[in-house]
């Protein structure tokens, strides 16, 4: 996917002015958040489960090589062919080779954020494969030629009217504002694809080390159909998705749907273990599992290791007031919201995405909801410090910070400045707010006043009233 993370500010301003988008965002994030909160409230073991899940993930990260080796061994034992890609280019190469070797011309794909990281569709198209997205949201944005704006609801930014117009133009369907009507249209067109596709492409929510299984958590059934009907199944999954045992899966299944959509369990949980065995009524003849490193090993070695615990539930997006205000697209890459603001710079390099860690008030709502307890605000702070270390801050900001720190070294100097500010402030504003500050603070006062400094700061007042003693 094309990277535009550093254009966050400009694209966020555009998003703020898009009335249709604003309406869609308020509806979707509000609904997800309300459902999630209700589901968590009705699940008293949430905190304990969260703690356990976080512990399991931490153990996985501490022994990732061991668990991955076990997963590969078990998956191969059951007939799967496992590939490991170091980076996106290698992943694309492997995927294209698989498609060519298997003689694929049509593939149905279920939702996968990892596949967006490597621009899988383009790679497959380059190998002569027509790729049809089969998740309803992904299908919609594929028709629109757009990218996902939400981890679990890729078309969260679209209204039903916009969708109906798309279906009219691309599928020749009549206009409707009925959601079941729209779903029916997509189903009809997709059904043919499922039946004729040679390959089903999926992501994977979990990789189970002790059984070699790929676990898919979905709501539409497209994931199951796409992994069962076509003769070849290609699963594209990040290496950090491994969990040690099948016995650990329920812990995560209790958390993921609740955090994502507020469901106690998703409509489908598919556990795909190896190829079709003799006597199996269905299942793929060939199963390829493409494991993506793509920067993950490097993250594992550093101070941001815990970000790899992420289960991609999207809860941090829904509760984030910044995401709620601008949606996913301004984040300019695959992942958006607080997790995107942390993960994108780590995966693509901080210089390419330094605008993202600044896109947060550090309100902490994300850390409150994260089902695996990733300290997202701490990581945002850490990335901002890295930006300074790596010379990514503007000279203006650094000079301002040095000046401010210089003043704060001496209370006397601060008091003198406060008193001058107080006199000027009172003189020019008559004690009312300041309506216009100069650049770089001019944005602040565009729609808000800034307070005028008080005539007599507290320190001075205290000295006068109580004498200059501590």
């Amino acid at each position, binding site marked *: 996917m094309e990277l535009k993370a550093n254009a966050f*500010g400009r694209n*966020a*301003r555009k998003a*703020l002015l898009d009335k249709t988008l604003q309406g869609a965002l308020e509806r979707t994030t509000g609904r997800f958040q309300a459902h999630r909160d209700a589901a968590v409230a009705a699940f008293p073991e949430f905190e304990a489960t969260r703690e356990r899940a976080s512990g399991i993930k931490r153990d996985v990260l501490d022994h990732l090589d061991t668990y991955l080796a076990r997963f590969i061994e078990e998956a191969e034992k059951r007939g799967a062919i496992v590939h490991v890609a170091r980076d996106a280019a290698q992943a694309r190469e492997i995927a294209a080779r698989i498609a060519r070797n298997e003689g694929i011309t049509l593939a149905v794909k279920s939702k996968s954020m990892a596949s967006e990281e490597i621009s899988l569709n383009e790679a497959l198209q380059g190998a002569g494969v027509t790729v049809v997205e089969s998740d309803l949201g992904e299908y919609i944005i594929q028709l629109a030629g757009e990218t996902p704006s939400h981890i679990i609801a890729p078309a969260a930014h679209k209204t039903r009217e916009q969708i109906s117009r798309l279906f009219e133009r691309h599928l020749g369907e009549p206009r409707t504002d009925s959601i079941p009507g729209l779903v029916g249209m997509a189903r009809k067109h997709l059904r043919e694809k499922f039946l004729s596709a040679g390959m089903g492409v999926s992501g994977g929510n979990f990789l189970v080390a002790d059984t070699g299984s790929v676990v898919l958590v979905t709501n539409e059934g497209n994931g199951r159909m796409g992994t069962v009907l076509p003769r070849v199944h290609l699963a594209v999954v990040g290496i950090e998705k491994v969990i040690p045992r099948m016995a650990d899966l329920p812990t995560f299944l209790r958390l993921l749907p609740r955090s994502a959509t507020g469901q106690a369990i998703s409509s489908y949980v598919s556990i795909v273990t190896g190829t079709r065995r003799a006597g199996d009524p269905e299942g793929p003849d060939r199963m390829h599992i493409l494991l993506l490193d793509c920067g993950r090993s490097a993250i594992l070695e550093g101070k941001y290791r815990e970000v790899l615990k992420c289960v991609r539930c999207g809860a941090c997006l829904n509760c984030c*007031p*910044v995401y709620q*205000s*601008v949606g996913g697209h301004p984040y300019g890459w695959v992942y958006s919201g607080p997790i995107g603001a942390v993960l994108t710079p780590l995966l693509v390099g901080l210089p390419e995405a330094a605008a993202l860690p*600044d*896109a*947060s*008030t*550090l*309100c*902490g*709502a994300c850390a409150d909801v994260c089902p695996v307890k990733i300290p997202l605000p*701490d990581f945002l*702070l850490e990335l*901002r*410090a*890295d*930006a*300074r270390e790596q010379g990514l*801050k503007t000279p203006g*900001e650094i000079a301002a*910070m040095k000046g*401010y*720190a210089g*003043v*704060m*070294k*001496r*209370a006397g100097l*601060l008091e003198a400045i*406060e008193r001058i*500010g*107080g006199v000027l402030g009172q003189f020019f504003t008559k004690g*009312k*707010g300041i*309506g216009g500050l100069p650049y770089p603070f001019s*944005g*602040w*006062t*565009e*729609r*808000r006043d*800034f*307070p005028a*400094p*008080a005539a*007599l*700061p*507290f*320190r001075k*007042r*205290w*000295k006068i009233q*109580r004498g*200059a003693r*501590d």
Partner: protein
Amino acid sequence: MPYTTGMGPFGSIPVSLFFTCLADAFSPGVCSATVEVLERFGATVRVPLSQTCCGQPAFNSGNRKEARAMARKFLLTFPDDGPIVTPSGSCAAMVKHGYPVLFRDEPRMLARARAVGDRIYELSQYLVDVLGVTDPKSDFSGKVTYHDSCHLRRGLGVVSAPRKLLRAVPGVEFVEMEESDRCCGFGGVFSVKYPQISCKMTERKVERILETGAAYVTSGDLGCLLNIGGLISRIGYPVKVIHLAEILAGKAAGRGDAV
């Protein structure tokens, strides 16, 4: 521990006031109100006069070198014993949670940061959790709604203390707003870097405040109040912003140089 009346059980223990640079410069009335409330419950208030800023703007923007210099000064300015009380959840959270990050590679400063962090309290937290105040003895009157500052609520975990105090003021009609814990959009440097997003969040906050029909919106953080108040003053909405300390201090303080 419940207080009695007049001199509290902590009357002999001096409390250090961390008045915050923001209140010092923009709302000194908030600092005076804090002193008044603390003295009402028997504290002997000390004000280290060489204090300046806790360094949060530098820390939050990733400028740790400058933040560390300010943190070092803070840690050397405040005395070695007794509680440090501040009318700001955000500044208290900075000392408590930010300083240990700044000094993670300096064991001696880290130990001091932790020790000071253990002694720092936001005002309502100190009154309710430490002094056991149930009646703030304020004569303030009016319909009041409360905004949870992010750092007070999520940073320090202080949710009920300010509400308990507000509900205990006989003249206060307390009304909860929807989304009281949703960020007001200030976020310090964030509001300078992304002012349009910040404003969008502030507008939603002000909508929620107006829905309550309250005459006053209060909070435990001046940053939020200056931000919210800036929008209210620009549009001229019929609601006043007032710091929690001023409500607790009472009528006279509330009419003073409020934010």
